[in-house]
């Protein structure tokens, strides 16, 4: 079926016949196999994580040791400036840090890497609905990487933050030196947009139309639900950002012909001629956050799904409240579309809108609460083994609680008036983005690595990586809440010129050191990854004794995934089912000759 669709889409070139004689290039580089593409995404994004992390360390260095020469790299990078970072460069650092982390790490690692790898496997399909489109979606990330990379080269670098609010981002004079860089940045944004777009329609089609026999919607693992809902969010929200990006791009045209959607009249910027426009900068904020708020759930829902699957498998227990989990994900997605204004409480928007957005934002904590309680419920009465996967999943849950709860402060508008654009926000989103999502991803890497490469990852290294990351992470980001409460504004190249912040310098040094610890812990992950790829102990099909379909395929699965077409008989979470006595898992594909009784709760012993 995939073959057929592909052939239709791409014209008439044959498909399948040459499956066993693909050249190296077709097999590993321009491959249309979803698993290869997934792994390509994974490796690319892990490398990008290092890039983004290195930029973050630059940010941290400047805050804690303002204007001091960075050890080792400082002289080399900023020789002309006497080893110093310039304020423009600092702006570029955090802009690119956020850009890389969000657009080249978190979104592609979730949807691109795990989405690609897992969706066909978990629903029992041979491949994605459109393998070629899938390949393109990976390769469209490269122009984006190149554009973002090029924006480093133009002197100032993009200088408007990842939110790139006009007028700062719309008029070249506003940020001298950033002219071409900002334009490149917008182009890069368009390319990641195209890439995600291709991915998301493909995922939706695959999930809707290519499920194995018996795989009804409510037998899908939560990972698939997460990916599915993410794809929907992506499909509805992303075009708006792309559209807004084009509008900003046209506003920036370096010729005398340029539009003025976001440029009001009579601004005198950098002593240039007053602008002639009539546009409205607030429009960008609305359009940007209309995408970027759903995007934060795009950066979370797949991780939520994966963590649910991992937790259930690790504690050998059905997920607590499967349907509420699905519904709450859907609710998060639905509500996610009507809360974007909470980023704009102080922006000068209509206060009536502020009230509406505040209510919806606070309400979004509700489905999140359901999820948190269900995760705890899943662990409740389960058999907990503290391996790397479990540890990362638990970290996900606790970090998400922290990040989510700090969201409540900000959702309360009056409080947000004070903490908006302070480090409280920075703490919040690193807790949800790194604390939740990235720990979830770390868990997922360890969990699905055996399926990807047929080998286990090293447990000891994994635990050390977890321990150092967790401690470093909390050391770095927990104190940021306090910074925020102390009124420490974000995006400050040198906060220390403000006397009311001076006493916070030691805390910032502590944060920076923690960040360095956390940063270097990531080398353990890379090392573990690279080492285990070639040297890890080999495993069979189902090393975790899990239920979902991917474990039914060989490890690693060949082209076409399954040697036997799977047929699905039950939901994905029948761990410790009373129907089978000799083991504590019951795969979705297993056919039990006896008619299954409806699993009841009574005969089971209550949790310890």
């Amino acid at each position, binding site marked *: *079926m*995939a*073959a*057929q*669709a592909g052939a*239709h889409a791409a*014209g*008439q070139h044959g498909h*399948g*016949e040459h*499956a*066993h004689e693909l050249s190296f290039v077709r097999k590993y580089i321009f491959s249309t196999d979803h698993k290869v593409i997934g792994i390509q995404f994974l490796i690319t994004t892990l490398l990008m994580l290092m890039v983004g992390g290195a930029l973050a360390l630059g940010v941290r260095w400047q805050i804690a040791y303002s204007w001091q020469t960075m050890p080792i790299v400082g002289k080399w990078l900023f020789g002309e400036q006497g080893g110093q970072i310039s304020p423009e460069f600092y702006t570029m650092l955090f802009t690119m840090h956020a850009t890389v982390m969000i657009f080249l790490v978190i979104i592609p690692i979730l949807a691109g890497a795990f989405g690609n790898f897992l969706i066909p496997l978990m629903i029992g*399909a*041979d491949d994605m*609905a*459109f393998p070629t489109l899938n390949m393109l979606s990976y390769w469209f990330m490269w122009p984006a990487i190149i554009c973002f990379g090029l924006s480093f080269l133009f002197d100032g670098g993009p200088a408007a933050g990842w939110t790139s609010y006009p007028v700062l981002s719309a008029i070249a004079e506003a940020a001298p030196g950033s002219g071409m860089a900002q334009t490149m940045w917008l182009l890069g944004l368009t390319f990641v947009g195209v890439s995600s*777009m291709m991915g*998301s*329609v*493909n995922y*939706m*089609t695959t999930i*809707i*139309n290519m499920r*194995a*026999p018996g795989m*009804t919607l409510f037998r899908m693992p939560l990972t698939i639900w997460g990916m599915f809902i993410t794809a929907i969010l992506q*499909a*509805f*929200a*992303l*075009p*708006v950002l*792309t*559209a*807004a990006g*084009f*509008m900003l791009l*046209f506003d920036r*045209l370096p*010729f*005398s*012909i*340029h*539009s*003025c*959607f976001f440029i009001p009249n009579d601004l005198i910027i950098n002593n240039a001629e007053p602008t*002639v*426009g*009539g*546009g*409205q900068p607030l*429009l960008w904020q609305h*359009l940007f956050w209309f995408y970027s708020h759903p995007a934060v759930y795009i950066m979370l829902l797949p991780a939520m799904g994966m963590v649910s699957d991992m937790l259930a498998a690790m504690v050998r227990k059905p997920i607590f409240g499967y349907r509420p989990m699905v519904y709450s994900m859907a609710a998060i997605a639905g509500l996610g579309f009507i809360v974007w204004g909470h980023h704009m409480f102080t922006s000068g928007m209509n206060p009536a809108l502020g009230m509406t957005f505040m209510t919806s934002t606070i309400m979004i904590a509700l489905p999140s609460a359901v999820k948190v309680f269900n995760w705890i419920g899943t662990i409740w009465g389960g058999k907990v083994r503290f391996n790397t996967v479990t540890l990362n999943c638990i970290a996900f849950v606790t970090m998400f609680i922290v990040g989510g709860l700090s969201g409540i402060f900000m959702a309360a508008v009056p409080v947000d008036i004070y903490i908006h654009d302070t480090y409280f926000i920075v703490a919040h989103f690193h807790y949800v983005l790194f604390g939740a999502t990235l720990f979830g991803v770390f868990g997922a890497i360890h969990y699905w690595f055996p399926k990807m490469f047929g080998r286990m990852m090293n447990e000891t290294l994994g635990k050390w990586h977890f321990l150092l990351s967790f401690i470093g992470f909390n050391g770095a980001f927990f104190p940021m809440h306090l910074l925020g409460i102390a009124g420490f504004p974000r995006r400050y190249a040198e906060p220390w010129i403000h006397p009311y912040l001076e006493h916070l310098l030691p805390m910032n040094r502590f944060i920076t050191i923690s960040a360095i610890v956390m940063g270097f812990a990531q080398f353990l992950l890379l090392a573990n990854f690279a080492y285990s790829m070639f040297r890890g102990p080999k495993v069979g099909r189902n090393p975790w004794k899990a239920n979902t379909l991917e474990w039914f395929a*060989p490890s690693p699965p*060949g082209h*076409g995934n*399954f*040697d036997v*077409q799977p047929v699905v008989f039950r939901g994905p979470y029948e761990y410790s089912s009373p129907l089978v006595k000799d083991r504590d898992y019951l795969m979705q594909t297993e056919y039990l000759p006896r008619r299954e009784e409806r699993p009841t709760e009574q005969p089971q012993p209550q949790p310890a």
Partner: protein
Amino acid sequence: MSHATHSTHSHPSAVRMGLGIPNSKLCMWLFLGTEIMFFTAFIGSYIVLRMGSPGWPTDPHVTHINVRLGGLNTFVLIFSSYLVVVAHEAMSKRQFDRARRAILGTLLAGCVFLGIKAIEYYGKYSHDLLPGHVAETPDAAMRKAVRELREARRAWLDALEPGDEVEKVRLERARSAGSSADASSEHALFVKFDRAVEELAAQVKAERITLADVQRRVRELKEGEGIGEWLGGVHEPHPVLYGNLFTSCYFLMTGFHALHVVVGMLLWAIVLSAKSLEGWHEYVENSGLYWHFVDLVWIFLFPLIYIV
């Protein structure tokens, strides 16, 4: 292993859970969903920007929006959409020749649409109604006229007195040559023009002249024999309040729509380049969906831009 793979691939008959519509059609519909959001962002922005603007140029003499051309274009697109359903129907009945003719018709209609669009764009261009170029107030319009006249003078001067000396020197030379030459010579004409420009510039600078006067003088200059042909880049000053925002929106929306038309035409061109239409049924259906969508967008753009 690879054998097993092979067999699953070449026998797509495996039962699947799903909607029972082909993947490609499902994908096309999902894609159209994203396209709706894409145009929503543009159209929505246009609507609110327009409402938020204290004024908006709507007079066709000012905006050079031509409802008749727009209506004609609407008709052309609807007609092409009709041809597409005809083609689709013909494909279902395996009347491939008829389908091919209909598709060719669609392609041609697309060309006509773009042609008319080009005429409209040219109208805007020739009045310099381009985003960022529009003078919004009478003052700005007059200053713009002076600027354009000076540019025209520079071009003329370059032709008259080529060389790499500073402009001032060449200007002096041209002036003195002009005053001594007989009245019909190129140089004399130039001097006449030059004087007019300088006088106008001085008056505009001193705010001693009304817009209507400037318009008249520019018109006279443009009609002036021997001078007019140098003034192609000079436009009669017509301030259009909020014209920049208006043209920004206009070109954004119609431009992206036109881009979609071009993509659609490419899709049709691919079908036509196939030797036989056998097996293209799904392709035609999906491209048709896309084409109808493009039509649909225009159905909304037409009243929003041209009429309201």
